[in-house]
């Protein structure tokens, strides 16, 4: 396997395709020999990011795509997720750990991404997410 390479994936906005994304990321973390806990964290973060892109960004519009890039290197895995939605302000998301929100049925996805990955950056008005996990 080369030391550095990029895997690209483009998905129609169909939630059932999250299983395709899950399979791809599972193989990548396995190939990169992440430890079990780290592998599970990456897997969860990618599922959450994919769900956000398809459901909240693209609003399940099958004409819109969610784009994923997996930049593999010896040191880390960098994942870029983009959607074709209207964007959002990532700083304007309610804190799911606030006692008022603890029993909310949603709103934990971005929080879980942030605690699972080492670096998380939103750009392009929330339409682009870059996240890094170090080995």
């Amino acid at each position, binding site marked *: 396997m080369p030391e550095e390479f990029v895997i690209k994936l483009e998905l129609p906005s169909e*939630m*059932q*395709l*999250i*299983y395709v994304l*899950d399979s791809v990321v599972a193989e990548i973390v396995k190939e990169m020999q992440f430890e079990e806990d780290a592998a*599970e964290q990456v*897997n*969860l973060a990618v*599922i*959450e990011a*994919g*769900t956000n892109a398809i459901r909240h960004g693209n609003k399940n519009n099958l004409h819109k795509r969610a784009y994923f890039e997996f930049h593999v290197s010896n040191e880390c895995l960098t994942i870029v997720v983009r959607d074709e939605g209207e964007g959002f302000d990532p700083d304007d998301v309610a804190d*799911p*750990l606030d006692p008022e929100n*603890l*029993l*909310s*049925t*949603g709103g*934990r*996805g971005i*929080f*879980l991404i942030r*605690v699972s990955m080492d670096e998380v950056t939103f750009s392009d008005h929330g339409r682009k997410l870059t996240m890094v996990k170090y080995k």
Partner: protein
Amino acid sequence: MNVNIRERDGVTILDIQGKIIGSDSLDLKRIIDEQIASSAEGEAKLLLNLAKVPMMDSSGLGVVVAAYTSVQRKKGRIGLLNLGKSINSLIVMAKLITIFERYNSEDEAIAAMNK
């Protein structure tokens, strides 16, 4: 994801198998809502057996939270059985660890939920 439903001593047990990710949460919500709706006030006792669930995302967790709220409203009880490390971590991270009743054996869960 597959769900098998069975009854034991007045407790409805949902044996869930497979990851709960993506659109699975909608299926699971429908199944749980049906079980709660068919229970009389004060008699909803739901045990989610997660022994064969290796992973759950935030949507799945949202369904479990919604089930907790619905069951509370009906003065019933809901328990989580056989949480794996991954789902336990998820619940800890979300600060829900003190909210849910958690059990490591079915016998223990049934006895506690019938007290």
